[in-house]
């Protein structure tokens, strides 16, 4: 039996298409998948609304408004024209103040947490100097800092920013340190044998390799920042979503409280989606880290 070789041999050294592992197959299915994801995600909130409505009706409580009442309040809060009181059409100012404080604190936390985390993760001396102190400070609840922060920064937005900063700082710092410590040592060796060493390694290897962990820390930190804005705005600031919630509590206006809660929830969600978009852009080299 003769064996005839008829397969045209591709030019040697030229990789054939089959060799490539393509990670994103079937782009065409995406829109339907997306709709399905949105529908699935909507099930729980819709059930929650129905349950809320049913419970308010069943118990006949006057303390908690129905979803409809809250929707009317939200409309008035955003555009006015219904109650025309102190809170009508005041959403933009409260929203803007809170966003400023949340991102003020968050960016301070990132600006200090990331470089410090890179140093602690990479330099043993700095790790030994600082890590025990941070381990000691970290378990202290941010709310416990409230009285001191009011003394340090007075009654006002600076105090709120400080509390947000404290809340966002530790997750960013710890995740950065973790990211640096878990860089594959082979990558340092590879960089060094290619002629990149010393402080150049920070920019060339440490930062990009730790980026997935840093983004984890940023997302956690941003989440904590939104959680802490209510605490931060308890410090006697007149405007802000947290201040609105505190006012609602004082005035027994639960519809205002729930309105504030929903707006914080939605804004926190959007802010997280923005971070996810940034995450996916900067980590486009690593689909396993896409959120």
């Amino acid at each position, binding site marked *: 039996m003769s064996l005839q070789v008829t397969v045209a041999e591709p030019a040697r*050294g030229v990789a054939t298409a089959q060799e490539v592992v393509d990670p994103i197959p079937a782009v065409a299915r995406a829109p339907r998948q997306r709709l399905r994801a949105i529908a699935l995600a909507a099930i729980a909130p819709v059930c929650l609304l129905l349950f809320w409505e049913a419970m308010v009706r069943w118990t006949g409580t006057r303390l908690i408004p129905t979803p409809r009442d809250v929707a009317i309040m939200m409309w008035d809060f955003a555009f006015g024209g219904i109650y025309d009181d102190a809170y009508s059409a005041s959403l933009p100012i409260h929203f803007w103040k809170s966003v400023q404080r949340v991102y003020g604190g968050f960016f301070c936390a990132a600006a200090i947490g990331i470089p410090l985390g890179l140093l602690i993760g990479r330099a043993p001396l700095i790790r030994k100097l600082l890590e025990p102190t941070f381990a000691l400070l970290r378990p202290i609840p941010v709310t416990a800092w409230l009285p001191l922060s009011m003394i340090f920064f007075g009654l006002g937005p600076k105090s709120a920013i400080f509390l947000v900063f404290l809340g966002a700082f530790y997750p960013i710092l710890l995740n950065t340190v973790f990211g640096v410590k878990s860089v594959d040592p082979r*990558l340092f*060796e590879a960089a060094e044998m290619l002629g990149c060493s010393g402080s150049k390694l920070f920019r060339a290897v440490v930062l*990009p390799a730790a980026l997935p962990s840093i983004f984890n820390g940023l997302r956690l930190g941003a989440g904590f920042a939104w959680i802490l804005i209510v605490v931060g705005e308890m410090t006697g600031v007149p405007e802000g979503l947290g201040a609105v919630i505190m006012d609602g509590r004082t005035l027994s206006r639960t519809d205002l409280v729930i309105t504030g809660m929903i707006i914080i929830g939605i804004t926190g969600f959007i802010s997280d989606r923005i971070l996810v978009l940034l995450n996916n852009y900067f980590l486009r080299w690593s689909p396993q880290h896409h959120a």
Partner: protein
Amino acid sequence: MLDTQTNRHLPALPLLRVNAVHKVFDASNGTIEALRDINMTIEKGEFICVLGASGCGKSTLLRIIAGFEKATRGSVSVYGVDVDRPGPERGMVFQDYALFPWLTIRENINFGPRHRGIPGPDVANLTDRFLAMVGLTAFADRYPHQLSGGMKQRVAIARVLANDTDILLMDEPFGALDALTRSKLQEELIDIWQSTKLTVIFVTHSVEEAVLLADQVIVMTAGPGRVDCQIKIDLPRPRDVSSPEFNAVRRDVTRRLTSHISRNRPAGTIADS
């Protein structure tokens, strides 16, 4: 064929010299002697295979030559200059590729030249040349995770070549690849070696791979790691693994290697020092 290392007072300095290198690792229950009195002299353009069983210290030796580990005693010198840290003249190709996952193939290949401050247009030319040499021009803007193992290893080789290395250090570079890809890459490596006049030190535990590639095979024994002998492979290139001559050499080398393994020495004895 056994070749003892003697100082032959050559007029020119050898490219690489390993001088009485000892390596002792600290372990929890004492010390482990990984390498004992390793000597070798490697001339420019040679293709050396270091052959030995797992745990014989061959990778440790390569890492000492690369400068990733320091010898406990002894020294490694390149053109007579002692080295104790990694340097671009000794380019390493790792078994697990160690590409930078956040850089494209092009950026991985020009990592070295960029960091050594070579001007932009030259870097671009250099990169294109080595992309073409390993046949990955079409994949220049992909990321490593999108490539197969064989392609990643080609990138790792191109990355070192683009950095103008003198000595290519390869630590079981094809160990994680399937047989077909491995033989293809072996062939490409020989082509690259012949066209660039590089010096290659290639660590492997495969007798066939060593006999296929090397001018000279250095056989190492374990516990502690020592050089057993150096065997010159005189087979003409390109070598045919199915030829009787090839098989005869392979049988000789295998016998030499297994005669030590069958002596039943424990891998990694605790040194008494």
